[in-house]
């Protein structure tokens, strides 16, 4: 094997420490972590080697390494670490640095840094204000109402172009960023894997691998191997399916609106093609509300679990908490928007809905730089690992 030159990158060490790996330097390589880890492959197991690479500032070895994503931060390692080096937290910090590395805009450094939180929030706030201020909608009585004086959010913030163009653009931006990041990540993983003994012989075709990965993700199989934070698997599963539910709801709503608009599909029984708001009995509405409730409960459980496990697993970083906070805010404001609308309390309904839009924008537009990105990078790493038979080695 070629001799590898080791030349530590002190800046990277400091970055990992600042990103939530504060106890990184305490590791003395006893390997207890790799022994207690249930999700690592048996050959070249993590997170022992990752701890050393991080201590030595070996950025190349870490950020383009699929192993950092195979880790699900069960925190079994952190709970058993005899020196309190918190490998789970360190790998979380490395993932954050990795996300930042592959996200191609300056937003990457801003999302992980509390200093920029207000600026990041200000962008959607100003954007949405620019839609309503000229119309004089800061005076809620000026906002047109629907039948029988009901509050109709579409009249406050028109679906087209305000909502759909804004979020469509945000989503497109996120997709492009993700695509660029993933391509770079895949390429670097490929180069790195060539240097290791994992071998590059791909078994089967890539689509089959992707399919297998999706099945695994759907069942949360890896997550269930965790010990110390076992409960996280259930709450995460709940959040995961709630998000899927909401994605379906959103698509469904688009079909209702544009199906009616462009294809002139009328209301069919319980399926209310046409403009919002939709009655509560509509299956789309039922799915949406159920998903919203599931997400709120799920995210609350995630937060409670984190607090409960803090002594064993570590409290987590700003990066983690920001994501949890955003999801929680989306759900809370979403549900209350609906409640206040139905109760017809304009003074609460419009500001709540406004806040809701701000946080949804935050989630969409900043997804490639926030912890939301874990969904994409982890899935990619899992596909790659399967592709190069990293996992079959276990």
């Amino acid at each position: 094997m070629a001799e590898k030159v080791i030349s530590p990158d002190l800046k990277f060490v400091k970055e990992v420490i600042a990103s939530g790996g504060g106890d990184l330097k305490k590791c003395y390589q006893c390997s207890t972590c790799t022994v207690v880890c249930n999700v690592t492959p048996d050959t070249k197991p993590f997170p022992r080697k990752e701890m050393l690479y991080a201590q030595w500032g070996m950025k190349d070895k870490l950020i383009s390494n699929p192993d950092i994503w195979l880790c699900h931060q069960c925190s079994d390692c952190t709970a058993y670490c005899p020196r309190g080096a918190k490998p789970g937290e360190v790998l979380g910090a490395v993932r954050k640095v990795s996300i930042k590395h592959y996200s191609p805009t300056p937003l990457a450094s801003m999302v992980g840094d509390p200093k920029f939180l207000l600026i990041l929030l200000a962008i959607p706030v100003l954007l949405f204000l620019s839609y309503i201020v000229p119309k004089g909608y800061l005076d809620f009585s000026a906002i047109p109402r629907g039948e029988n004086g009901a509050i109709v959010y579409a009249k406050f913030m028109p679906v087209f172009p305000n909502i759909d163009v804004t979020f469509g653009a945000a989503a497109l931006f996120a997709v492009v960023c993700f695509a660029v990041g993933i391509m770079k990540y895949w390429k670097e993983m490929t180069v790195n894997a060539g240097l290791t003994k994992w071998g590059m012989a791909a078994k089967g075709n890539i689509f089959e691998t992707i399919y297998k990965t999706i099945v695994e993700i759907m069942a949360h199989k890896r997550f269930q191997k965790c010990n110390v934070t076992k409960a996280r698997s259930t709450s995460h599963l709940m959040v995961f399916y709630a998000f899927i539910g909401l994605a379906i709801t959103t698509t469904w709503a688009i079909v209702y609106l544009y199906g009616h608009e462009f294809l002139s599909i009328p209301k069919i029984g319980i399926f209310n093609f046409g403009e919002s708001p939709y009655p509560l009995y509509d299956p789309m509405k039922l799915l949406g509300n159920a998903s919203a409730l599931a997400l709120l409960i799920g995210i609350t459980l995630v937060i409670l679990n984190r607090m409960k496990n803090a002594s064993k697993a570590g409290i987590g970083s700003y990066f983690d908490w920001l994501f949890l906070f955003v999801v929680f805010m989306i759900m809370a404001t979403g549900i209350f928007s609906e409640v206040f609308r139905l109760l017809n309390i304009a003074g609460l309904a419009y500001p709540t809905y406004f806040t809701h839009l701000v946080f949804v924008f935050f989630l969409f537009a900043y997804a490639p730089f926030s912890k939301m990105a874990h969904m994409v990078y982890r899935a990619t790493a899992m596909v790659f690992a399967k592709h190069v038979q990293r996992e079959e080695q276990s």
Partner: protein
Amino acid sequence: MEKKLGLYICEGCSIGESLNIEKLTNIGKNALKVPVVKSHFALCGKEGIDLIKNDIQSEGVNTIVLAACSSRIKYEEFDFPGSLVERIPLRELAVWVQEEKSEMQIAAEDYIKMHVIKAQKGDIPEPYMMETVKTILVIGGGMAGMSSALQSANLGYPVVLVEKEAQLGGFVNKLYKKIPTAEYYTEPLIVDTEIDKVVKEVESHPNIKVYKSAKVEKTDGQPGAYDVTISSNGSEEVVKIGAIVLAAGWRPYDATKLDHLGYGKFKDVVTNIEFEEIARKSGNKGKITRPSDGKEAKKVAFIQCAGQRDPNHLSYCSAMCCATSLKQAKYVRQNQDAVAMILYKDIRTPGRLEFYYKEAQNDAGVMLTKGEVTGVSDAGRGNLYVEMENSLLGEKVNVEADLVVLATGVVPATLDDPILNLQYRQGLGLPDLDLYDGFADSNFICFQYETRRTGVYAAGCVRQPMNMAEAQEDAAGAALKAVQCVEHVAKGIAVHPRAWDMTYPDPFMQRCTSCKRCTEECPFGAIDEDEKGTPFFKPGRCRRCATCMGACPERIVSFKDYHVDMIGSMLKNASVPEDEDEPRIFVLCCENDAYPAVDTAALQKIKINHAVRFVQLRCLGSTNLVWIADAFSRGVDGLLLLGCKYGENYQCHFAKGSELANYRLGKVQETLDRLQLEADRVQMVQLAIDEYEKIPDIINEFVDKVKEIGPNPFKGF
């Protein structure tokens, strides 16, 4: 002094129920003709002690034979100054280890006979008095030497300090900073050495006289009365000295032998000592510059164990380099952009230093990894590669550095220089230091600082590789041993390990044939020779092991309470069973390890074959071959010697005793063959103090072997 014996038989601890005390009393009175024989239900109680004290005062008893328990216990109760005290371990050897009641009685009678005869043959000890001084000589003015000097001086002893350099301070003078001794998490990890303060304290101390640029030319005499010739700046002076602290320190291992690590080949490969000099260099203010181009070093690699734990260089660990490299890493880290990379075999930071290691490791720029450094090569751009194999970072990696520091090891000053220049018949320096890689160490497990020369106590890195804090502790220990030495020789008693012993070797010189066996064999060099080659004893150097007594073919060496005839008479006066199937076997055992093991076996009520009788010796080295003839001529069937382990990891209190006994036994076989006795009737076994469980098997095996040989043909003569 006229002796009057008193035999006191204790009935406590089940002795009374197991034995016929009346019969024992009668043996004492009638057969052994002891003038005062008494028994008591608990001799160690106040009433029992008063009974004895009363006899001392009113009856004039001055030789007290206590048939009670082992001499290893109750020694404070049974302390009668001015009297000769003989202890018979009746409880242990006659009661606890015996199975049958009848055997208990026979054993008790034997032991009483043997020990009463021993006491009858002994004399009341008197101390060896000579003119002594209490001045302590400290050789070496480094941290250990200065600390030792201050310790002794503060205890009120005059101190003479000899330093070879022109100024005090030793290696600390070369250091930029030191490891703090306070809490590592509150103090900075590198602090000023403040050696000036210590030097000043030493130089201004009224009890300390300092010789600089000085050397010990000659050490003559003995503890309490050494004549030490000190040369300093061309003049010589003879100083009277009581005891010596050897703190001559160390030097770094010769790095030119480490060319495989690039030393000599690359200017930017330096030793840890040279690294201190770089950091100390005036104008640098701690900035680390490279010798090659004077640029600041920002990637410094430390190679641990450079030429250490390596059979081709130093085979041992120098104990201080791991913490030193962590400290030096902090020098590098005075520049926040620089990194220090420590490449180790193992990090060894015992005790509180573990916290130092943790604190240093917490620094983002201090990087550590384990691996095998195989070489140093040119990386171009003025940098170097440290080549590593089997490292945690990869199977084969090159660590790029702009400066490489070799953690070279400690070589003791005593490796090739006797330092002390002792005018002893056995040589100028300390003997057998090759056992310790040249360090002035010893295997006196329980007695650190002691060397094989009484009165010479080693401290600091000349004794073992250690760090500065440990050297200071060592210095205190050695100073206290030196104090013990001067006080004991002033009182005329042994220094150690028989620190209570007032007796001393008193040879009957008229019969000396000048064969010099004693001068050769004395483990402590206590015996010199005069111009005619006749040995003469220096009792101050003597540890009272009686190796000389065992060595002497003329049997002229005796102590007041221990001599050849005394033990020989014990061997001749035990019962020998008439039944030919019942052998009688003597076990000669060393009182420091083997006998305590027997005591422990007894305490655990482990049964031991009734054929044996135990005789305690000061050391197996005192075994005189005539005892074998003594025993066998009386029909004894076998002789077993239980001694300490010898060899590289010897456990003998007197270093050589059991080894010498074994050596002498090698020669006795001839004699036995001549007597037409089987050589296998005499055997030596090595036993450690904690191996008491093995004793019954060792003895049974030997008894079986003797039974197989058959009874001693001299039986009944």
